[in-house]
Structure formats: structure tokens, C-alpha cells
């Protein structure tokens, strides 16, 4: 069996399944908005470079932008559940199958890392007291990237899941320390520290027991990766219903229990629980926290208003993805849910969540009410208007779906 060829075929099949959507992505309004935002960002960044404010915390900014890009790793293996039966006998040869996953996973992420570094570089060399060389920085970051990828691979194979979680934290800590050392310390001292830390980390990785091929773990990871890819596609175009990655989140276990005990709200119960334990909640929460932080930092200028509206738009896109959740659910066909309750329930839920986010992430603007009442209130109003426009758009789409179903 040619394992390399098998993986290549599977990758081609996945890529092929995305191609029909490319045209829709180009046509979609979301793509246009992203393009617009990119142009606006470029203009703002150019203006910033021409007139850099004094005391900008460039090293912290470098750290904030480079750590996720350098440490975050993932692989597409395209493994499937039946592989636990049919590929099991090939276990000793699976290195051939995984090698391209390792290469492509790293190549794309190194390109992403380089892009971020090159984008931030003009600001860095203009503001840092003793900037490092671009090539040396890139090489150090690539080293961190490769070490993180190796760490993730080892974590995946670990027999103990709690140990794997511990090593996950260790990976992020090690990556952060390495990048921080390079940004803050003189080159030679930083390099010595990085090499020693890398050796210690690599040695630590060899300690826990591990599977030769962690089939089930890899299949779960692959499922999550595929789901993520479809979710990103879902920002631009309606894709068929997908499963989502589920997190226990015990602290949210009561959310949804208070929903009115009526057949009309049965779907809202399911949606609330699904949202509370799904990946959309995590993504929206992260965007909201970042939004809150950035709006607070820039609340005294129109940039703050722009950031507030843009992030609210991003959250709206994420929340709208809830429309596709359970769209192919067996039980929603069999259970006697009142007609239209799924669509109405989803639109109502998304609108309310969007409003709450508009309210919360705009709170820093209220601090400016005394000095700039009109811009602050106007920005807030824009946020609510945006939530309403999302609702109108979702209602239209839902009506279109209903017409198609007739």
C-alpha cells in the first residue's frame, strides 16, 4: 500500500470539496468587507509608521503577535475512523503517511509567521532601541515553530491525557520564554538561553509513555480540523451542516435550563446548550475579550469606534454560523417541533447574543461620555444597528430557505 499516495488522494478530495465554494467566497459580501478592512488597516498602518507615537510598547506588541504564530501548531492527517481497522496493520509504516502532514503543517505556518513578522518589522525597527536583525529573528522564530510542532506531535501520542494537557501548557510557556528572551535580551545571551531551554524541553518530551500511532486521538484531531475548515468556509457561504468540537464547560451547564417550557422553545434549548459547549462560543469569547481590550485602549479616538464596529461584525459572522448548526439533524425531522420554530429560535438567539456583545464590548466607550458624548453614543448606536442588520439578513436568508423547501 502506497501510504503517501493515499494521503495525497485524501487531501485532493478534501481540497476538491472546497473548490465549488471559491466563486461564492469571492462574490460574498463578507469577502468584500474583509478586503475593505485590509485596505483601511493598510492606510492606518502607513499613517502610523509616518508618525509613530512615543513610548509605544513595541516589545510587548511583538510578543503578543509572534507567540501565537510561533507556538500554535496543527496537522491535517485526513485520517478516518475506519483507518483503525484498515490501516492498523500498516502502523509500523505510518511515518510515510504522516511525513507530508508534518511538512505541509509547518510550511504553511512558517509562511504565516513570516508574514506577521514582516508586517510588524517596519514598526519594530523604527521604535526599538536595539533592534535585532530580520533574518536572525526569523530563524529563531522558525526554531520555536519547529520545536512547538514537535512538542504537539509528542503530546498527541502521550498515553496520559492529563500529562498531554500539562505538556501543552509547558509548550506555550517554553515558546513564550524563548520569544521573550530573543526580543528583550542581547542576541548571544538570548541564543544560549534558547538552546538550553530547547534541549531541556526536548528531554522532558521524551519522558512520558506514548502510543506508536495514537489512532483515536489523531482521528479526533482530524475531525476537529476538518470542522474548523468548514467553519471558516461558513463565514462566506452556506455550507452543509457540520458537527462541532464539544467542550464540557461545566460552569455553563445550567445555561438554557431556564428557557420557557414550551414546544416553541424546544429548539432554543438545544441551540443554547450547543452554543454553550461548542467552539463558536470560545471563538466569540476570545474576540470579545480582545475587542474589549482594544476598545478600552483606543476609546478616546475614532479608531476605537472602528475597532468596536469591526469586531462586532466579526462576532456577528461567527454567531450567524449557528444557523447551520444541526441543519441536518435526524431528530429535528422526527420530533414534532412547531413549523418554523428552529429558524425563528436561531435568529432570536443570535440577535440577543449579538446585542449583549454590543453592549458589553462597548462599555469602555461609556468612560468617554463626559468628553466625547456624541461619538461614544453614536458608536454604541452603530453597534446596535449592526446587530439589527445581521438579524434582517438572517431573516431574509431563512425566508429564502423556506421558499426553497416548498
Amino acid at each position, binding site marked *: 500500500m502506497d501510504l503517501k499516495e493515499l494521503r495525497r488522494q485524501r487531501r485532493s478530495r478534501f481540497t476538491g470539496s472546497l473548490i465549488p465554494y471559491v466563486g461564492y467566497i469571492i462574490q460574498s459580501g463578507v469577502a468584500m468587507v474583509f478586503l475593505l478592512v485590509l485596505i483601511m488597516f493598510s492606510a492606518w498602518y502607513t499613517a502610523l509608521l509616518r508618525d509613530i507615537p512615543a513610548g509605544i510598547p513595541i516589545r510587548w506588541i511583538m510578543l503578543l503577535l509572534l507567540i501565537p504564530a510561533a507556538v500554535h501548531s496543527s496537522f491535517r492527517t485526513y485520517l478516518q475512523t475506519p483507518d483503525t481497522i484498515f490501516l492498523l496493520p500498516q502502523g509500523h509504516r505510518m511515518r510515510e503517511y504522516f511525513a507530508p502532514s508534518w511538512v505541509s503543517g509547518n510550511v504553511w505556518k512558517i509562511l504565516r509567521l513570516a508574514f506577521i513578522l514582516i508586517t510588524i518589522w517596519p514598526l519594530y525597527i523604527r521604535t526599538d532601541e536595539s533592534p535585532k536583525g530580520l533574518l536572525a529573528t526569523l530563524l529563531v522564530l522558525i526554531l520555536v515553530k519547529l520545536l512547538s510542532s514537535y512538542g504537539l506531535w509528542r503530546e498527541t501520542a502521550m498515553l496520559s491525557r492529563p500529562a498531554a494537557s500539562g505538556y501543552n501548557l509547558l509548550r506555550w510557556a517554553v515558546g513564550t520564554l524563548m520569544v521573550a528572551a530573543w526580543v528583550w535580551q542581547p542576541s548571544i545571551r538570548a541564543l544560549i538561553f534558547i538552546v538550553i531551554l530547547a534541549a531541556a524541553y526536548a528531554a522532558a518530551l521524551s519522558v512520558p509513555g506514548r502510543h506508536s500511532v495514537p489512532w483515536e486521538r489523531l482521528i479526533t484531531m482530524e475531525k476537529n480540523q476538518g470542522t474548523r475548515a468548514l467553519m471558516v468556509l461558513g463565514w462566506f457561504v452556506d455550507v452543509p451542516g457540520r*458537527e*462541532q468540537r*464539544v467542550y*464540557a464547560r461545566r460552569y455553563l*451547564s445550567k445555561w438554557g435550563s431556564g428557557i420557557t*417550557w*414550551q*414546544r416553541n*422553545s*424546544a*429548539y432554543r*434549548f*438545544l441551540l443554547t*446548550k*450547543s452554543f*454553550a*459547549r*461548542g467552539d463558536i462560543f470560545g471563538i466569540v469569547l476570545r474576540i470579545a475579550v480582545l475587542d474589549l481590550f482594544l476598545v478600552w485602549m483606543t476609546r478616546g479616538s475614532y479608531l476605537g469606534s472602528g475597532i468596536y464596529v469591526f469586531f462586532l461584525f466579526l462576532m456577528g459572522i461567527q454567531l450567524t454560523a449557528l444557523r447551520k448548526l*444541526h441543519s441536518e*439533524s*435526524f*431528530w429535528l*425531522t*422526527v*420530533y*414534532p*417541533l*412547531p*413549523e418554523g420554530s428552529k429558524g425563528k429560535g436561531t435568529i432570536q438567539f443570535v440577535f440577543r447574543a449579538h446585542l449583549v456583545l454590543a453592549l458589553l464590548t462597548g462599555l469602555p466607550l461609556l468612560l468617554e461620555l463626559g468628553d466625547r458624548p456624541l461619538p461614544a453614543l453614536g458608536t454604541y448606536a452603530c453597534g446596535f444597528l449592526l446587530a439589527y442588520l445581521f438579524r434582517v439578513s438572517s431573516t431574509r436568508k431563512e425566508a429564502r430557505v423556506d421558499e426553497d423547501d416548498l
Partner: protein
Amino acid sequence: MNTAPVLQITGLSGGYSLNKPVLHDIGLQVQPGEMVGLIGLNGAGKSTTMKHILGLMSPHKGEITVQGKTRGSDPESYHSALSFVPESPLLYEELTVREHVEFTARAYGVERSDYESRTSQLAALFNMEDKMDTLSSHLSKGMKQKVMIMCAFVARPALYVIDEPFLGLDPLGIRSLLDFMLDLKKSGASILLSSHILSTIENYCDRFIVLHRGMVIAEGTLAEMTAKAGLQGLNLEQLFYELVQGGK
């Protein structure tokens, strides 16, 4: 004693392709308070028949009514009158066991107090009390099947459509399920049950319908079917073997 049948299928032909129907002119009915066993070889059309009843497939010909209503005329009443236990558990990974049962109860409009009492009873019956707040993805296959059964039984509709319910269940679970079905039957519920474990259902079902290659080849009580086939004294398994071998 019989009133109108709870489930009536008349002249049903259907399948995945118009040119190649799987079911051929199926006719059957299930009366109130009756448990009917639907038996047949793999591919005989049992699951396809059930899919038609559930509305997952549309008949090419024929009509299906549940409590006198077709799915087309009144889908909400039609679906309210039946619940289903699938052969393989179909669960939402985002929900716990309790939340599955609660979602079903909400969807069927079960009163909250009824939901609470029925849930406690079912959890105890199926030995699931300590798993009620566990996410479905953390359950074994047998436990997942129990969740499906609990969901179907919390609704208390007029008709239960149950496809291979014993797969993955432990012996205690099978016994609890059979006993509970008998209780439901006594309370007037109707059950259409498909299973390959003929020795088990022989003693529990009132009547049997034998499907073979998409056609009903025999129906009635065990005594009626053996008499009609001239094979008195055979048990259900022996009779079934004779019927399908004869139908070669």
C-alpha cells in the same frame, strides 16, 4: 375491542430510487395496545418501512396514517403521535443524558412535572442514574442506546417504532426494556418492533409481520402463521427459517 388502528399502511411501495423500489405493496396495521414484531432478513425492507413511517422517505405509492392522520395533512400531529428508537444511537455530542431527555420532552410538549417523574423512573429502570449529567460522547454504545430508549419513552405517544433495540444492551437492559414495553402496551400504547432476536420477541409480541424482499410474506400470531403454512408446532425462529427458505 379494536377501534381504528394507530398505524395503518396501505399499498406502500417505496425506496431510494423510483426505478428500483425496495418495498412492494406493503400493507400492515398496528392496533391500540398491540405489540407487533416486524421481522425479516437483512435488506428485507424493515428499516426502509420504518423510514417511510417516520417521514424520512416519501412513498412512491400508498398511504401511511398514524392515528388517522397522514404526514402531509398534519405533520405536527403525525409526529407527535409517534416516537422512534433507531438501530444505532443518534445523539447530540453537546448534550448530557438528562438534556437529551429534556429536549425530547420539550419537543413533544410533555408537562414539566411528568418529564421529571418519568425521567427518574427511566433512569432507575435502565440503571443510568449516575450517568444523567454525563455528555453523550462519554457513554458506551449500550448506554447511548439506553438514552435513545429513554428519549422515546419520556414522550408517551400513541405509537412506538423501535428498530433493533437490543443491540448493545446488556441482559439487564434487555429485560428492563421488554418489561417496560409490556407496561406501555398494557396502558394502551402500540409498538412496532423490529428485531433479529426472534426467540426473545416470540414471547412478547402479539403479532408478527414477516418481510422478505420488500414484500409481506406472512402475518398474524405465531399460531396463525404456522397454521397457514401447515407447519404447526414450530417456534418463531424455525417458522421464519422455513418461510424465507421457501421464498427463495
